[in-house]
Structure formats: C-alpha cells, structure tokens
C-alpha cells in the first residue's frame, strides 16, 4: 500500500488519525461543529471491531471513555465549547487517576451557546485550567487538515505514553475546511502500545519514580484487582488524606508533563531567524497570519511566523529563542488575548507583545494581520 491522496475535512482527518493510532472506543454526544467525528466513528468502528456509543450527554461520554480506557482500550471523545465545559470534572479525574484519553475540542464562539457554527479560539485557557485543582495537561492545535490527522495520532501516542488526557484543540475552520491530504502508507505508522505490568504479584498501580515517573497501567479484568479512585491515593491506590502522599502525587503528576515539555514541543517557524516583528499564532488564525507575513517579507519587511502546534505545555524556551531578534511580537487569535498572555510572559524582557484579538465569529483576513505588521514596524 502506498501513500493515499484524499480530499478531506479536518474532522474526517481527526477520525482517520485516531483510527490509524488504534482507536477502539468512542463515546460522544452530538454538538456542532464536532459532530462529523462521532458520525464517522459510528460508521467506521463497527467495521474494525471497535465500539461506538452515543451517550446521554458529554459528562457521560467522557466517563464512558475513561471506563473503556481502564479496560485497556484506546479511547477518544469529541466535542465543542458547551460539551467541553461539561467534561471538565472528568478531565480532572483522568488527570489524577492517570487515564489515557484523547479529547477533540472543536472550538466555536462562546461563552454559552454563543455562535455554534462560527469559529473561535476561546478555549485556550480552559484547556489548560478548565478542571478544578492544580494539574498539568497536554493540548495540541492543528493548523491545517493534515495536522488534524497527525496531531490526533500524536495525541494517542502521548496519552498512552504519559497516561494523561490529551486535548486536540481544533477550531471550526480547521475542522470543516477541506484540503488535499497525502496520507502515508499505514504500515509506516508507529502505533502506540500501552505499557503494561507483567504480573499482579506486588503490583502497585501508582508506583512510579517520584520525579515525574509514569506508573504501569493494568487493564481491568486481568487479575490485578486494583482500585482506581479520584481521591488522592498512595502507590497502592488506597485513598489517603496524608499531606505527604498528596504533595508527592500532585508534584509527580505535574512533573511528568513539565519535565518532558521539550518532547511535546512542536511548531512551524518561517523567517524567524532575523525577524524584527514576529507573529505567533495557532490554528486557523495562523493561516491568515502566514499569508500576511509572507507578503510583508516580499515587501522587504523583516517579519517572521511562528505557529504553535503544541499549546500546552507552553513551549517557553522555543518561543523565547525563536523571537530573540524581534522587537515586537503580534499574537493574532480568535479571542481577547489568551495565547498572548503566555507569549507576553515569555518574551516580556526582550520584546513587546501586541494582542490582536478577534471575537466576532469571523476568521482573520490576512489584511488585518498585515495592517498590524505594518503598524509594528
């Protein structure tokens, strides 16, 4: 089998990326603009011996996914703003209990019901901090249809390796846009396999290196007979109210993501080496931004483009390094300045940050970013 060329939509590419990574279980609830993912999973998974279920709401959807993940399956759910809000409690559960899980959030205009068919990027901070309590998380942002495939695949790799919920932060434009996509030979994929303990003897479900180690996960039904609880727990899985146990667990969970931030780092950079004004963006906003940057370059302006594919953990070091020559950093995004807060935190000693927020439900026109660039020079 050779490469396949297909015209496809972002949502379709997400689904295909998930199936390529070995998706076995999908639970979801209809919501615009993510519904095509559920529809496609409902159609494809039975053919492959996998399971689909339409749950009664998004709370039930993520809960069912966690249950299936505990049985040893690769699981995914897909949703948008209101549904993503409903899933927050269980994202925390999956973080604390270390359950591999992929969540596609196709962002739409909010808050509330908002404008369901309009694009937005207002869930950047919610993806990071949406659930209560301190925790670290991984969020990836595709910037074109091919990346919907690639980053969903990657989300499974990371979820299984680090036992974390991984969020794919798409947006309505990326997910409904159709592009020509070249998919490589399926035999070339390195399918993620969850590491499992060998034997129940002496099994410690949460026994791991305190410095960000990842414990081995035994599937339910294989004789390990372990306890999974959303209460703080010790290495044996037993609930614990001990200060030392709580402190060690929370720090290990944060550390296992933060210490590997370099591995998660993923971005697209163009003309950043000598740029005087940098544009840092993600998702569909970055498409308009790239066009504007190229136009400015043609006109002799030293503009550079940095598009982040990994949003969380935020790639501090890469952003700082790549924007080193810039005096200003423009951050176009379809919100009032969320990614810009992170950029500002990282570059404030070396460059000024310009928040270019758009919140009318329309995507950026390259002219808008170009105008901001002109003004910055």
């Amino acid at each position, binding site marked *: 089998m050779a490469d396949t060329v297909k015209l496809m939509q972002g949502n379709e590419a997400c689904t295909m990326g998930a199936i390529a990574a070995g998706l076995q279980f999908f639970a979801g609830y209809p919501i615009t603009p993510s519904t095509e993912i559920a529809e496609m999973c409902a159609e494809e998974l039975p053919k492959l011996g996998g399971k689909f279920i339409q749950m009664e709401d998004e709370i*039930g959807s993520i809960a069912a996914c966690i249950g*299936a993940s505990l049985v040893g399956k690769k*699981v995914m759910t897909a949703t948008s703003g209101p549904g993503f809000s409903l899933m927050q409690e269980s994202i925390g559960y999956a973080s604390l209990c270390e359950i591999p899980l992929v969540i596609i959030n196709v962002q739409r205009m909010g808050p509330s019901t908002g404008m369901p068919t309009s694009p937005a990027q207002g869930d950047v901070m919610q993806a990071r901090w949406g659930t209560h309590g301190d925790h670290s998380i991984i969020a990836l942002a595709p910037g074109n249809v091919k990346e919907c495939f690639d980053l969903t695949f990657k989300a499974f790799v990371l979820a299984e390796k680090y036992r974390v919920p991984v969020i794919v932060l798409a947006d309505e434009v990326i997910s409904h846009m159709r592009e020509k996509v070249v998919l490589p030979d399926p035999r070339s994929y390195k399918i993620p396999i969850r590491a499992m303990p060998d034997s129940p003897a002496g099994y410690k479900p949460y026994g791991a290196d305190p410095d960000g180690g990842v414990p081995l996960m035994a599937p339910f039904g294989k004789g390990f007979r372990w306890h999974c609880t959303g209460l703080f727990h010790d290495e044996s899985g037993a609930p614990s109210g001990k200060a030392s146990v709580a402190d060690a667990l929370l720090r290990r969970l944060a550390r296992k993501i933060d210490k590997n931030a370099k591995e998660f780092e993923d971005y697209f950079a163009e003309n950043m080496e000598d740029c005087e004004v940098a544009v840092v963006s993600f998702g569909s906003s970055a498409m308009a931004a790239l066009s504007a940057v190229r136009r400015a370059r043609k006109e002799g302006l030293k503009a550079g483009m940095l598009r982040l594919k990994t949003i969380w953990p935020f790639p501090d070091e890469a952003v700082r390094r790549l924007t080193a020559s810039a005096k200003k950093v423009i951050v176009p995004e379809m919100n009032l300045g969320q990614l810009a807060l992170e950029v500002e935190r990282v570059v404030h000693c070396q460059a000024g940050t310009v928040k270019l927020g758009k919140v009318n439900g329309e995507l950026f026109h390259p002219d808008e970013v170009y105008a901001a660039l002109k003004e910055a020079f």
Partner: protein
Amino acid sequence: MAEFLDYFRKERLPHIWCPGCGHGTVTGALIRAIDKLGLDKNNIVLVSGIGCSSRAVGYLDFDTLHTTHGRALAFATGVKHANPNLKVIVMTGDGDCTAIGGNHFIHAARRNIDITTIIMNNSIYGMTSGQYSPTTPHGMLGTTAPYGNVEYEFDVCELAKAAGASYVARATSYHVTLLTDLIEKALMNKGFSVVEALTQCPTYFGRKNKIGGAVELLNWIKDRTVNVKAAAALPPEKLEGKLLIGELYKGERPEYTASYSEMTSKVQRTYNDYKGGTRGCELNSD
C-alpha cells in the same frame, strides 16, 4: 462459603461508616450473592460514584472504580461496552444514582445494558451530613429541609421499570436473606438490573427525624415495607404509604452489548473486504 473476609482488601479495613450504618449489611449481601454464584473475582468490576455507599468498593478485592459524583453508571457503561465479558456491578446511593446521576440511571435502564446496580437508599445525603435527597419521604427532616421536605420522593423501582430495566427488586437491610437472594437473581439477569436496598442512616436521618438509633430505624424501615407476595392478598388501605419488597419486575428485552455485537457482526460480514483509508488495529481481542 469462602471465607467472607477473602472478598475484602483486609488492609483497607476498618471502613469509614458510622456505627449502626446499613451499608455494611448491603455490602455483605452482595458478597454472599457473588460467593453463592461462584463468580470469578478476576472477572468482576465494581464501579461506584460518590457518597457513603460508594466507598464500599474501595474495601472489596476486585477491580474497583470509584468515580465522580453521579457518574458511576456512565463509567460502568464504558467498562461493559468495551469488554462485555466482564461482570459489571455498580454500588451507588440514592443521591448519587437518582439526583446527580438520574440521567445516566434512566439511560442505562433504557439501553438495558448488562450492569447490576445496587442502590443503597438511606433517604439522605450522609457524606455531607444529612441533606434531603430525591428519596427523602415528603414531610421528613433534613438539614436542608428544616421545616419538613416539601418535595415528594421517587419510587426508584417504578422509575427503573419505566425506563426499561429488565430486572427490578427491592429489599432492605432488615430483610438480609431476601436482599441476598434478590442480588443473586439480579446478577444472573442478562440486562440492566436494579436492586434497591433500603438502609438506615442513624447518624443523620435517624437523629434528625428523632426516630432513634439503628435498631429503631431498622424497625421503621421494616414497618414501611410489605412483601410483594403478601401485598397481593391485602386490601389497598393496608398498603397505603408502604413500599413493596421482593422481586418487582422481570422482563425480557434485548441487551445492549449483545445487540451491538450482533450489529457489528452483520457490518463486518458486509465489509469483510474493508481495508479502510488507514490501518485498523488489533481491535478487540476479547
């Protein structure tokens, strides 16, 4: 019977329940039913939500899943759907199952998914110290019903039956032999099975309502109930305000995971030459 305590994670005992609480009695009944049926410990997954009753699973030596408030049945649906060979049992309470988890409860029943649900109904939120629940009888006291409950309670069994459960039964922590027997039958039913176990909370329900301690509460529960067989011979006035105990409903309906598997087989026969745009992985070995 195998040694009773062999079903427990002995190192996790003693439990957190108050003296006189009925949850231990219900947990004991479940263990005896499992033992009687000779079910394989390694093939059972116990799932619970949040509340006093939901703490039971942490003490029991199976694969156990202590989830978020109200969501036990949704997690359990994922477990069962992902691996239908597992015996999935949910231990939940009146608040967990019928208030915050009410939606999952009716939909699990509607699907008739093969999960056995034991609802420990003590008519109160015990863990948060005595607020009224959807099963607190009208007029009775809770810390959030200081002038008497103005709401009316669910009949949990009628609800389960109406929503589509294929096995519905009720017993109490007073009628332990009956309770054990009904749980055993529920575990044998291939479908969504509900056993409501009326149980006592002397600390918050009994004290607040001035009924007394565990013994008085058990008597109060006993007096509220009539066996469904005896009820058939009683005039309606004798049944007023009483809850029926015993096997209340048993029906034949297609079970969800079996139906899904049937559909999958048909689809796979049709698409047996299906290669997909990408590779389908080593799916579902079980």
